[in-house]
């Protein structure tokens, strides 16, 4: 075993030494995926955001502006759809009751739960802690959210998941961003609540820190943020109603965000509005979730909102085009590019392919390490996030595996319209959903 490793390492070092003697073009030929796709997408953009966040002259001004909104103290309606959430709904409500921003109402919608969710929520309602509404049968998350929206009295609506917990200043920090009248929606900063459960959750936690957390900062700065997460996102109530609320089916959060953007409103990210949410702890659960997310790219962004790509359309805007194009590039194209890269290397450099792979691993490890340092610098939980760095060694194999899952999802959705069979929406709704 040790001898084998020694042989491989020896081969790798020889390969690297050989590269040093080569022209730069050869270097790029071997590692074009990294240099043309991942390096600009992750590392360069991360560095730019870091510089902007740290050295922004308007930082204090922005904070003061946000405090003005909080001083005005508009009513915020927090809508929680719940389906069989007897284990977490009480904690979610308690977490929201602890918010420093107190002028809020909590609305819980029971989406036909068959466990003790109903009795728990009735008790909370009798105690005057929530406004509670119940649907007799499961109608799907979108219907539950729309039902709750009907009873919202607040100027702003915050949609959260029923298994999420929040920093005490999360709502206040979220709402503060509505100081700018051009802002229609604000995305909260998601972190993983069950990160220590197993390796899968640790890796997902790292992904939330790097790809999702840092990535959203980048997109928000570039004004191309295209998803307000369903687990924690704030909207102007008037816009939610004007846009018709949530449409049924998976991807309802990206769909609503797209509609908000089409109205002409801006969408921003609140890194200081922190929400902890649960991620799938099992391999199968992870696959199911990522397949659903990835299918939405095709069904929602390409099919349903294809008008954003049409420059002649009346709703066309360049920022919406970029916002819609970015995930196509970073998810769809990059995933296929990764597959194409592997095929390219295997077919053109079969003898040194293992060393190319190992060298890629080292490159990505260095890149993600720098990315992690940037995320740490911007994090408000540095001690906790430092401990995640020990999983960096497994991070990029995890990401490459995730890309393969995405490819499967894109094929499923393109040829089989699999999202219309996703149990995210109940059958009675799926049968009637509009197909794009």
């Amino acid at each position, binding site marked *: 075993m040790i001898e084998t490793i020694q042989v491989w390492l020896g081969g790798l070092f020889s390969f690297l030494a050989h590269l040093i003697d080569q022209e730069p073009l050869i270097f790029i030929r071997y590692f074009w995926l990294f240099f043309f796709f991942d390096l600009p997408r992750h590392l360069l953009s991360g560095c730019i955001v870091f510089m902007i966040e740290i050295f922004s002259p308007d930082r204090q001004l922005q904070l003061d502006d946000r405090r003005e909104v909080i001083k005005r103290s508009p009513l915020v309606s927090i809508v929680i759809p719940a389906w069989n959430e007897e284990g977490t709904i009480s904690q979610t409500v308690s977490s929201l009751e602890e918010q420093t921003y107190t002028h809020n109402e909590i609305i819980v919608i029971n989406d036909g739960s068959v466990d003790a969710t109903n009795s728990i929520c009735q008790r909370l309602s009798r105690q005057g802690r929530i406004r509670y*509404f119940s649907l007799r049968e499961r109608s799907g998350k979108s219907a539950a959210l*729309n*039902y709750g929206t009907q009873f919202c009295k607040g100027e702003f609506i915050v949609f959260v998941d029923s298994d999420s917990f929040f920093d005490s200043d999360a709502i206040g920090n979220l709402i503060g961003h509505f100081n700018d009248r051009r802002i229609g929606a604000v995305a909260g900063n998601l972190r993983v609540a069950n990160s220590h459960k197993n390796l899968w959750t640790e890796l997902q936690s790292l992904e939330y820190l790097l790809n999702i957390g840092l990535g959203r900062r980048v997109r928000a700065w570039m004004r191309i943020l295209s998803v307000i997460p369903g687990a924690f996102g704030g909207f102007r109530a008037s816009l939610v109603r004007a846009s018709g609320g949530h449409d*049924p089916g998976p991807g309802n959060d990206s769909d609503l965000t797209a509609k908000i953007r089409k109205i002409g409103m801006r969408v921003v990210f609140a890194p200081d509005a922190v929400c902890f949410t649960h991620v799938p702890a099992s391999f199968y659960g992870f696959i199911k979730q990522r397949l659903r997310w990835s299918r939405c790219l095709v069904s929602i962004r390409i099919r349903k909102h294809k008008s954003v790509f049409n420059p002649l359309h009346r709703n066309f805007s360049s920022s919406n085009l970029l916002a819609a194009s970015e995930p196509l590039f970073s998810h769809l194209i990059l995933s296929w590019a990764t597959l194409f890269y592997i095929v390219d290397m295997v077919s053109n450099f079969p003898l040194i392919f293992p060393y190319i792979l190992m060298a890629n691993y080292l490159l990505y490890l260095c890149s993600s390490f720098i990315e992690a340092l940037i995320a740490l610098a911007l994090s408000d939980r540095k001690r906790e996030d430092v401990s995640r760095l020990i999983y960096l060694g497994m991070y990029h194999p995890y990401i490459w595996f995730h890309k393969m899952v995405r490819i499967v999802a894109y094929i499923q959705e393109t040829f089989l319209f699999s999202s219309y069979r996703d149990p995210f929406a109940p059958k009675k709704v799926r049968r009637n959903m509009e197909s794009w």
Partner: protein
Amino acid sequence: MVDSLKSPREKPGFLLLGSVEDVNSVPQHPEFDILLHHREKDQARLRIIGVISDDPAVIEDMICRVRGDCDLALIPLVVFSSIKTSSPVMADGIYPPVFNPQILLGILKEWEPLREKIDKFSSLSENLSKREKNRLILLRYLILRGVKKLEPKRDIHSATGYSYPFARMILNAAPYDECEADLKIMENRGLMEGEFVDTVHLCCGCGRYNLNFREVCPRCRSANLAEERNIHHFRCGYVGCEAEFSGMKCPKCRRRLKHIGVDYELPSVSFRCIDCKEGFGDPLVACLCIRCGKDFPVEEAVKRHIQGYTLTPEGKRYAWAGREEGAVKSESGLLEFGVFKEFFSVQTAIAERTGQNLSLILVRGGSTGFSDKVATTNTPDTTHRLAEVMRKTLRGQDVMTASPAGGVLALAPETSEDKAVDISRRISNAFRGNLGDTPVVTFYEYNGISLEEVMEKLYAPEEAVERVHTT
């Protein structure tokens, strides 16, 4: 109850209650006497009671009076009336108002077996309070009349909406809650067994059942609510109240809704307060007491179980014996006189063998107004009060009983004359300010005579060894 043995020379009595003309119209019979009034000396020979009237209210009133009297409650009662109705509550029979002597004799003989059964019950102890006597009479009534279960009946005049009509009569309980309290006491003592019949909700203010339960707005407590059905359109996911779907068109996507269950569903009902416009899923349920006007949440309503009662074996034993099995103490915690006599015998034997002293102390109403406050000192209530005060003064080894001649008699073992004086003074002082009066306390140091002789001396004012007065 008075000794049930009657003289063989006394004719049985037929007590008639009614108007003077009705009663006087009834002829005498050689084999029985028509009694027009109830007197204690006639108790033993009183075999049956007849109520003569055609007025149901009068009949009911007379029955109430009879059944509420401990001495008469168990005696067979028949009604003579020309009104054709089912037997009134608590009447044993109804007959046409024909007062042929032979018919009356036949009625008397018909109910004689029941009357003889009453004679088999033991007499009521004098130590029993009036309420306890009524409870005992009720138990005996249930046995005699073969009533298996005391069922509650709906009664709009009762605080709980239920009452026990004939239990109330016998318990002489004018307030409904006293009757229920008596039944509960008997249940707690194991004499009756309660069985669930119904649950009632009572006002937390006045305790009555007259509640109006209504749905109110959780925000402003108004009862002016509108109920809205909600429609969920599957295609676009819109959920809104029915009013928004005018012409069955979805307000979001403008498509027509055609088939329920296929295009859309009615997933819920919500409410809207017409006064404050608040929308909510479930209204609060509030109670308004019609009687006192108190408005409160339904959770604060007092829940009370209404029970039916059956006699337990212990209850039957108690009814026959007149006291609970194994009980040596009366209701007021005093020893039964028979038990006291036994105790006296044992203590006197010990005193004679060991040479120790033994004293008896009698406390009863005095001459300076104490007796003015109560009719006699022999009422159980007075005895109870005397016993309470004395218990605090006497020692643990001293025992007390209610003397049949009145007052409370205490036996103090290992007590010489000097100590008896001291105890007596302490008892007198204890009464001062307690009952606000001056009882008479006499004591006697035992010197070998019987208890009856001791009691004669204690009661005879001239022959008491010492009398202690309090000023």
